[in-house]
């Protein structure tokens, strides 16, 4: 059996209770924090520092919110009308995906981000210099800069718990088994079985985001009703992966997440080409007319 550990997030049975968020905060001893708009000075000044449009008051993942339960409210088939028939709430407990090919880890210039023996991506807080390159490189907007400590933070898959044989705090606290911790291979098999079971029951919109296990289906409700969906494998696979019931974008997940390094060689190549073009242009500017001038005045070459 592989040593890789991860989590399977079955959004079809998430009730949005936020027990996972609370457990994460408690275990990692993080301050309660404030929802995003509270960080907006203007919003605080204007007493608008509250989402006010959802039970989701965390807003998004941050340096002090390593786990975030998303509330996706689909009120009626068309959000632009007042038709409130067939509403549904999609819930998803989000966190770092611990990508098999992690953009944050790839670009880290100090080696502060590293791969653990469990395949998760952890941060040496003593090594991080707070350059924030990893923040822009993460395709999921997970890793975030902590203004208070001057370093970056994200979910570390409870590395300290794993080392003493415990699972993650969030999965332990989940009352519906929406979050399951375990060996990635076992979780993939479990996820595949779950998708097939849902399809057999007529819920054909279930599919896996993170690994391509060959499932496909059609969305059965909401604004995207009837659209085709299929398993999505991104950045070489995700050690924390999801069973979704709508398009990835609906959950705030990119459909085509990619490693930032895809641009490295082409961008460097174009830079070399531009340098060559400028070099030729500059040489031509200084050489032009000088051949004749040099022939006439025969100045000493070089300086």
């Amino acid at each position, binding site marked *: 059996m592989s040593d890789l550990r991860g989590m399977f997030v079955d959004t079809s049975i998430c009730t949005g209770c936020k027990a996972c968020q609370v457990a994460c905060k408690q275990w990692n001893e993080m301050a309660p924090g404030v929802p995003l708009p509270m960080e907006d000075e203007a919003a605080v000044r204007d007493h608008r520092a509250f989402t006010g449009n959802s039970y989701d008051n965390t807003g998004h993942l941050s340096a002090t919110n390593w786990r975030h339960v998303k509330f996706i409210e689909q009120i009626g088939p068309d959000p632009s009308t007042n038709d409130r028939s067939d509403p549904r709430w999609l819930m998803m407990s989000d966190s770092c995906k611990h990508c098999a090919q992690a953009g944050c880890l790839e670009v880290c*210039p100090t080696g*502060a981000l590293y791969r653990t023996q469990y395949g998760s991506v952890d941060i040496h807080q003593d090594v991080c210099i707070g350059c924030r*390159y990893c923040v*822009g490189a993460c395709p999921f*907007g997970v890793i975030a800069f902590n203004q208070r400590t001057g370093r970056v933070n994200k979910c570390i898959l409870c590395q300290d718990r794993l080392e003493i044989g415990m699972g993650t705090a969030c999965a332990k606290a989940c009352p519906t088994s929406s979050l399951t911790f375990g060996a990635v291979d076992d979780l993939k098999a479990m996820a595949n079985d779950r998708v097939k079971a849902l399809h057999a029951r007529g819920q054909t919109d279930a599919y896996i985001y993170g690994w391509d296990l060959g499932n496909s289906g059609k969305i059965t409700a909401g604004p995207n009703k009837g659209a085709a969906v299929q398993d999505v494998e991104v950045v070489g696979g995700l050690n924390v992966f999801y069973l979704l019931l709508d398009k990835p974008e609906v959950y705030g997940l*990119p459909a085509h997440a990619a490693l930032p390094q895809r641009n490295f060689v082409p961008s460097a190549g174009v830079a070399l080409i531009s340098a060559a073009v400028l070099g030729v242009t500059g040489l031509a500017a200084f050489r032009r007319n*000088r051949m004749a001038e040099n022939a006439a005045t025969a*100045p000493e070459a070089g300086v």
Partner: protein
Amino acid sequence: MPDKYVLPPEWEWPITIALFLAGVAAGTYSVMGLMHWAGDKRDAPVIHRLGFIPMPIMIVVPLLLIYDLGQQGRFINLLIRNPAAAERPGPLMFNPNSPMNWGSWAMVIFAAFTAIAFADSLHHSGRIRFGWLEGVSHNTVVLALGELLALVVSGYSGVLLSVTNQGVWSDTFLMGGLFICFSELSGMAVAAIVSDRVGTAVTAGAVRRALFGFAAVSAVFLIIFLVGLATQQDGSLAALVASLHEFVAPVFWIGAVGLALLVPLLVLSPRPVMRTPNGSLALVGVLVLVGVLAFRYAMFFSAISFVQG
């Protein structure tokens, strides 16, 4: 693909200023080397004045970059591997997948070459004599290595922006090329200012032609950059347009396009459309430098403001 799934890196103004200054230093060094190879004795006064410029700038640049770090005291972790860091061979820190590491090392080594150029200029000014330096500073291999490092310093920040997942920056391969173009443009702008003061007519004429040529090449690259974004089917250009709002839009169009590109193209064209007072080449150089700073600002804050918006 432009998206709002990513978080902005929250880089602030010191980074913009630092990378602009690094571009000017690298561009000035490149132009100095170019004039050394392609010029002659008549260019010597300008070449020796240009040699004074990169080193002081390369002292300021790291200070600005360190200032912007969350943990300033740990900047050394960029160069020397911290014992707790991820395993790498040797005591030095170099992650070949990270353009930031390439840039860090290039700046450190390039700074040594700027010091040689500075000492050589000091020697030629007659203030302090370093006779032994003559053979080193004018050595073709030394100059070629310095030029190569100057190019890395010029372009690495553009490549660094491309190697992210931020909309606009990561939608194109051209950022590194564009940054090199504008760095070299700023270097030639510095040469224009210097040659207007101390250069011969021959040097000033060559610098005029080169500045016009560099502006033309940069304009072509910028057009390809915008067309490239426009032809993508995922709304990359729309993202750029959306991000070029409020203060960033006039900075881009008036500064980067107007001052950095149109001014030299219109004033220094073989058939000038505009003229500067007294035909001042220095004024063109100053306007181009302001334009290059505007370009850096607009490119830097376009994606960040898009994500934050």
